[in-house]
Every structure is written in C-alpha cells, then in structure tokens.
C-alpha cells in the first residue's frame, strides 16, 4: 500500500475527529473526538516512519499516547468538576462566561 493511502486515511480520521467536536452534545464524546484526532496523527507518524525506515515515527507515537493519557486524565477530572456544578454534560450548558 502506498504512503498516500495511509495519509488519506489519517486525514479522514482527523476530519472525523474534528467533526466530532462539533456534532456531539456530550463533553465526554468531545474528549473522545480529540482522541481520534490524536490517533489519526499517530497513524501518520507511523506511516511516515515506515516510509523513512526509522523508528522515530513509532517512538513519537509513544509520546503522543502519553500526552493523550495526561490530557484524558485532566480532561475527565474537569468533566467531573463541571458535572458537579450542574448535573449536565452538555457543553451548551456551560456558557456562563461570554461576551
């Protein structure tokens, strides 16, 4: 398979993830969408790494996963905090800061 295929695939995934940020009305799903985007990037890294024949791509993915984990932790903590304030996970419910 050509690198192009992989890149297109990662692009598609990235776009889906980005779209997810908008489509869903659930904070957790928003986080999931971001995870999808990161994975899309991971795919690109690995594919590039394969093409270049180096391990860098793969190693970077480890770091990305770490970051993803960290983000997930903090993000979920925040979600919990928000949920405590208003029994809701709808992002539209949290618009007290505006203008």
């Amino acid at each position: 398979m050509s690198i192009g295929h992989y890149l297109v695939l990662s692009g598609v995934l990235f776009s889906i993830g980005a779209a997810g940020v908008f489509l869903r009305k659930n904070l957790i799903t928003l986080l999931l969408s971001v995870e999808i985007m990161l994975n899309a990037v991971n795919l690109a890294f690995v594919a590039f790494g394969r093409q270049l024949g180096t391990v860098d791509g793969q190693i970077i993915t480890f770091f990305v996963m770490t970051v993803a984990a960290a983000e997930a932790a903090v993000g979920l903590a925040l979600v919990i905090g928000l949920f405590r304030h208003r029994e809701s996970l709808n992002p539209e419910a949290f618009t007290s800061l505006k203008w």
Partner: protein
Amino acid sequence: MISSSFDAIIPMLCVALAGLVVLLAESFRGRDEKMPLGGLAIIGLIGAGAASILLWNRNATSFGVVTADNFSLFVNLVLVAVGILTVIFSSQTLDRDKIPAGEYYAIMLFAIVGMMLMGQATDLLVIFLALETMSIAVYVLTGIRREQQQSTEAAFKYFLLGAFASSFFLYGVAFLYGVTGSTNLDRIGSVIAAQSMSGNPMILLGVGLLIVGFSFKVAAVPFHMWSPDAYEGAPAVVTGFMSTGVKAAAVAAFVRVFLSSLEPMIAEWAPVLWVIAAATMILGTVVGVAQTSLKRMLAYSSIAHGGYLLAGLVAGNDVGKAAILFYLAAYALTNLGAFGVIALLGTRERANDDLRDYAGLFKSHPALAVLMTFFLLSLGGFPPTAGFIAKWYVFSAAIGSGYYGLAIIGVLSSVVSVFFYLRIVVMMFMTDRDARPVPAPITTMAYAGLVLSLIGVLYLGVLPTAVIDFAQASISTIF
C-alpha cells in the same frame, strides 16, 4: 556525553526541583501547619535566574534537543520574573481563596518548567511535550478554584480548545517530519534550505498547522476565543501568570521555529502572519472597548498585545527579534502588575473586577490607584513607561521591513486601546464613589511586588538602553 551536557537544562532543573520539594513539603505538611512554600518556590526561581545568567554566552546544549542560547536565557529571565511576581501576589490571595498552596505552587513551577523548555527546545517533539506540560499545568491552575463553576468552566474550555489546537499542531509536526525525516529544527531547516521545498504542499500543510498551534497559544485571532473566557474564569493571579508566561513561552518557541528552521519560507508564512497580526491588534482593541469586567478587558488587551508581538515576528529582522524580547519583558512586568492590583482588590466572594468596583479607588486606595494607573498607561503605550518603548521598538521593526501598514494599524489600534485603559483611570480618579466591597488589607509583601514591577516598568521606560542592548545581544548569538 551526559555529564557535560546537563548545563543547558540547569535552569529548568532548578525550577523542577523546587516544584518537587514544594510538593513533598505539602504532602508532609500537617493540617494547618504553616510552611514557607512560596519562599521555596522563589528560591528555586532565583536559582533558575542565576543559572540563566551564568549560562550567558555559553551557548550550551544538552541532549541535542535543548539549547541555552542567549535568546532562551532572556526568555528564562522574563519567566523567572513572572514566576517570582506571581508567587508574591499569590501569597496573599491563596489563603483568601482557600487554594491548596502546595499543589498550586508545584503546578505553577512545573508550568514554568514547560515554558522554559518551550523557549529552549530545538526539537519539535520536545516543543510539543513542553507545550503540553505547560498547557496542562495552566489548565489545572485555571480551574483550581473548583468550587466556582466559572473557574472550572474556564478551565474546561481552555483545556478542550487547547487539546483541539495542539492536535493540529501535532499534525503539522507530523507533516514536517514526514517530509524532512526529522523533528529537529536544525535538520528541518537545513533540509528545507537545501532543496527548496517551499512549493511542497505537505510542507505548507505543516507550516500552516504549526501556525495554528502557536497562534492558539499566543491567542491570536481567530484562535483567540478561549482567552477572554479563560482569563475571566481563572483567579486573577493565574490570569496574570498565563497572560504573560504562556504568551512569552509560546512566542519564544514561535520565533525560534519560524525564524530559524522556517526562515527560508518567510515569503510563505509572513503574509499569513501579517493578516493574523493585523486582525489580532484590531479585534483585541476594538472588542476590549465594550468590556466592563476588568479581567476580560485586559484579556482582550493581551490579545491585542499578542498582535503587536506578532508584528515583530512578521518583520522578521533582527530588530524585530530583539523587539519581541524587549516587548515580552515590558509586557510581563506591566500586565502582572495590573493583574496583581486586580487580584489584591478581590475578595473570596467576588472578584471585584467590574469597572464599577473601581469607582473612587483613588479615594479608598490611593497607592493602588496610582500603581494601577502607571500599569495602564504602560499598557496604553504612553511615555515614559516600558509600554511606549516596547511599542516603538516593535513598530520600528515592522517599519524597518517596510510593513508600514502593519505599523499604522498598530498605532491606531493602540489609540483605541487607550480608550478603555482610560475608562479604568476615569473610574479610579474621576468618579466619586468608594470601591466596595472592601478587600482585605494589603500586605507589604504584595505592595513590594507591585512596586517592584512599577520600578521595572519605569526603568524599562526611562533607561531602556541596558535591556535593549541585552536583547540585541540575545538574538545576535543564535539566528
């Protein structure tokens, strides 16, 4: 190999150690036992500052991904100043707002580590990691008053958008890696310079996505929308911290990436940044006009200042680089001072950051009012304050590269910004109503911090020579 090459990371090492110590101290701290945690933090920061000064002109590098060139050291010093002032102002507000001191200081210090690393890293991956470290820490700080919905909400918005943007950034890194086969800035630069790839769509994708990522951290239009909310929701001290530190770090990395390895493509990215800078200056000032919350107003103003910084970046000449450094210093001192005042005037119940709360402040707190006025004048770019010299420096750079349009937009927008800075002055001096509710008495410590930043502001405004030379020396070594 390892032994010799620790030098470059000593500054951030100091800070990180301080963070760990604070954390440990906190964990071993008995219930309501007082500990000089802030003192520890300051010690660590001073150590970092000393280290940075000692490393001056040594141009040390570590692990091939961290450099301690003068540029980053200058940024380090700015960050140290930011950190110290923040700690000073925090010392009064933490207890008032029931913020867990240990974690607070620790996370703040780790954030500073991330910031320093952003300035020093020479590898896109490390930059990304540093950025994440900084960001996550700042997310936490933003939401640290978790009993307040606003605080948490701000933190979440900041977090979600941050993650969103950094995945764009990462995607950009991926493309650059894919094309150049490396994430190391020098290698990328040499590859791009070697075979002119400016036409290569993937490179362009990468550059574009990097712009998105950095612009988000700098809060440049249209990637700015998180900042007003985050700034308003966060505790005032934290707002001051992130409006200066995060910006400084992000701009430092921005400059390093775009003026070192992406220098050959300046023709490609300058127009984009021109538009972004102009839009940022205009929108930041114009929307600031309608604000009534001081924190929000200053949030927009700091957006605008990000625009001025970008103008220096667009200029892309040596003057511009030095100007950015000077501007960072001036802006950090000024803005921290302003937010310090805001923080000191707040109470546990409400932030007192509404314009009306400042009516007659000159009567109730003359000293604070005067200090605030100086900071506002500096933000507005009036002589003889740091703000004026900084603005002049940046616009001088822009004009030097022939960007008259950008300079004109800049000066005019700064006039508009003067309008809302003066609204505060009007409130403080020209309307006779006592500010209420009255805040807790202000400690000499806090005053010391404010006076410190005032001295800095005036020093940079009246005798800027030393710092200007310093800044020029800083950029001379690396790029």
